[in-house]
């Protein structure tokens, strides 16, 4: 009997106009988003390769270690292939950081920065389509699942037979959900095939696992709205009321809660602004630079070569002093900046954590967080990347200072020194391992399952007790 109910639900849905409309729209949007994602990834890859080559050329063209240390090296963030599915925060945050001996590095030049219009509407990626469009379809498929049958009278006719209500609602859930998945699965499979055959797109085994986990999250997310639809449909007496309630809940879940939670977290857990931190860093830098001039001139006065002494010995001594002094001063600045940054990042993370936890009540937030983590385009991955750049900064500074001081020119000839980059330490960043990303997404998977169970049990109990007249 369950099979008959499931079959009827599927057949009834796929022969309806709403199914045809949903299928066409889903196919167009999903394929469009995959095409756009792939095309964006390719252009990002090109941009990334060009930026790496340009940086290398710039470094090689430096005429002295001093200019190299001042100008620094540029670190570019490599585009993520799964960003084609979930662009995450990648388009909003910077993609390149300059690491030099002077300033604390920060990621700048985001896509939104170069073209602000994108920030108005956001990216049309697959996650967006599932989050907004398909969740609305899930509501459209279920708002009258029970109340509609009650209104039409088919529920009475069905239950005038030996049909247990629990089996009926289970059949409705399975059949209806399968019907909803058809417009999703077919274009998704096509999208995956496009990913497979696209030139310049290479996905590792791990990437495919990540992609499948993202799809699993999509299914769970849609199940949440599907079971919510059944729940509301089982508790209302008119399909128009059911639709309005569901639409209201959808707006709350998808738009209000995520935005409100960020605002609430900012109010509940205030942190200093980036400008305040920068001002503190600048103040300390000025203080160090001010005292440095005095210390250098004091040292020179004390160690100035006496008449008859070999000036070359003095040059050797002053080189050694300046290298040590420079390393010490830079270390002081770096340590101070690191401490300020550490404190700021801790407070920022605490605020972010609060916002994330508050917003997690909404399945839409859970969907976003999990897919971003799996695609490695989330806030955490961004912060890990930024932290790796900040960790690289003292390494680069130490190398640059050493090279700069060892090659100080006291001859006054202004002769250029050949800059050798062979031993320049390189920035290293290892993308988050799958196991870690998966652990990070576990609360989101758990939340989805809990919501599905709560809404489905709600629908189940409501339907068992429902007045079917």
């Amino acid at each position: 009997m369950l099979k008959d109910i499931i079959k009827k639900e599927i057949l009834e849905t796929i022969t309806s106009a709403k199914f045809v409309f949903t299928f066409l729209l889903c196919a167009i949007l999903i394929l469009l988003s995959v095409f756009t994602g792939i095309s964006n990834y390719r252009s990002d890859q090109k941009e990334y390769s060009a930026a790496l080559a340009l940086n290398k050329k710039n470094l090689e063209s430096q005429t002295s270690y001093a200019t190299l240390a001042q100008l620094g090296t540029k670190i570019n963030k490599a585009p993520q292939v799964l960003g084609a599915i979930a662009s995450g925060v990648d388009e909003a945050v910077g993609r390149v950081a300059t690491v030099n001996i002077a300033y604390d590095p920060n990621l700048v030049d985001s896509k939104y920065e170069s073209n602000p219009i994108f920030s108005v509407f956001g990216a049309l990626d697959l996650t967006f389509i599932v989050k907004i469009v398909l969740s609305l379809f899930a509501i459209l498929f279920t708002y009258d699942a029970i109340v509609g049958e009650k209104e039409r009278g088919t529920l009475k006719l069905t239950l005038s037979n030996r049909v247990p209500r629990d089996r009926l609602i289970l059949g409705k859930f399975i059949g209806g959900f399968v019907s909803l998945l058809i417009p999703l699965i077919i274009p998704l499979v096509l999208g995956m095939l496009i990913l497979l055959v696209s030139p310049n797109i290479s996905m590792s085994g791990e990437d495919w696992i990540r992609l499948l986990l993202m799809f699993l999250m999509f299914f769970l997310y849609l199940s949440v709205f599907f079971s919510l639809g059944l729940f509301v449909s089982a508790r209302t007496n008119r399909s128009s009321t059911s639709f309005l309630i569901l639409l209201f809940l959808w707006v709350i879940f998808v738009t209000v809660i995520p935005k409100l939670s960020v605002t609430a977290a900012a109010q509940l857990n205030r942190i200093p602004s980036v400008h305040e931190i920068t001002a503190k860093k600048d103040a300390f830098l000025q203080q160090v630079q001010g005292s440095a001039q005095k210390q250098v001139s004091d040292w020179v006065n004390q160690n100035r070569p006496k008449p008859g002494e070999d000036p070359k010995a003095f040059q050797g001594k002053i080189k050694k002093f300046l290298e040590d002094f420079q390393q010490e001063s830079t270390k002081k600045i770096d340590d101070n900046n690191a401490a300020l940054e550490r404190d700021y990042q801790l407070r920022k993370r605490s605020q972010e954590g609060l916002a994330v936890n508050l917003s997690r009540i909404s399945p839409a937030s859970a969907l976003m967080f999990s897919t971003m983590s799996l695609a490695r385009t989330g806030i955490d991955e961004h912060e890990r990347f930024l932290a790796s750049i900040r960790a690289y900064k003292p390494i680069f500074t130490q190398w640059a200072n050493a090279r700069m001081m060892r090659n100080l020119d006291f001859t006054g000839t202004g002769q250029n020194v050949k800059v050798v980059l062979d031993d320049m330490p390189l920035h290293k960043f290892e993308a988050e391992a799958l196991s870690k990303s998966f652990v990070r997404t576990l609360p989101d998977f758990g939340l989805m399952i809990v919501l599905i169970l709560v809404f489905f049990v709600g629908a189940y109990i409501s339907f068992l007790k429902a007045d079917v007249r």
Partner: protein
Amino acid sequence: MIETIELTKRYEDGLLAVDHLSFSVQPGEIFCMFGANGAGKTTTINLLLNFLPPSEGMALIEGIDVTKEPLRSKDFVSFVSENVTLYGNFTAFQNLDYFSKLAGKRKLTKIDYAKALTSVGLQEEAFDVRTKNYSKGMRQKLGLAIAVLKDAPNILLDEPTSGLDPKSGQEFLKLLLKMRDEGKSIFMSTHDIFRAKLIADRVGFMRKGQMVMLKTRKELEGEDLTELYIQYMDERES
């Protein structure tokens, strides 16, 4: 057999919809229940189908207490509602197939469906048409075909002839008589005194949840059913 014993339904707001109602419909009998809107006819059917729990008393189908064994009791009863609205995207065949399977008739073929549809007077051209394009009469016939295929010994009809054109109404009554002759117990709530008069073996009048009059076909001979109906309606008004 369809039977109610002191069947009572009082809603939470205190409204007494059915008040200690006792009657039975024997095999091979058509029982027509009259009453104004809100008299309790449909509530009685809902109680017999266990769509509502009774406040007191019992509703029995083939001697089975529908509250104690709701699923088993449904094997012995068919239901045709006032407005048979089926799955509009399905054809008559598809609707029959689904509801027959729910009724446990899994071995029926398209030939059986065609026979049932023909027996209720539905034209062959309509068999494969989506039922959302059906007229009310066609839907009622299909509803009855579902009951025919279920072949339960008891049939509950809730104002089944309302809105039917004369020809469809006539065909509908013929089919009910045929089913009665096959030994089925038929309980029909209706306002349609003209058609009921033609087929009813017994009639009952309900008012404020109570059966205020019960007459057999024989007792009705020589009486004007229309006047009786109006008389009871007037009493209700007064």
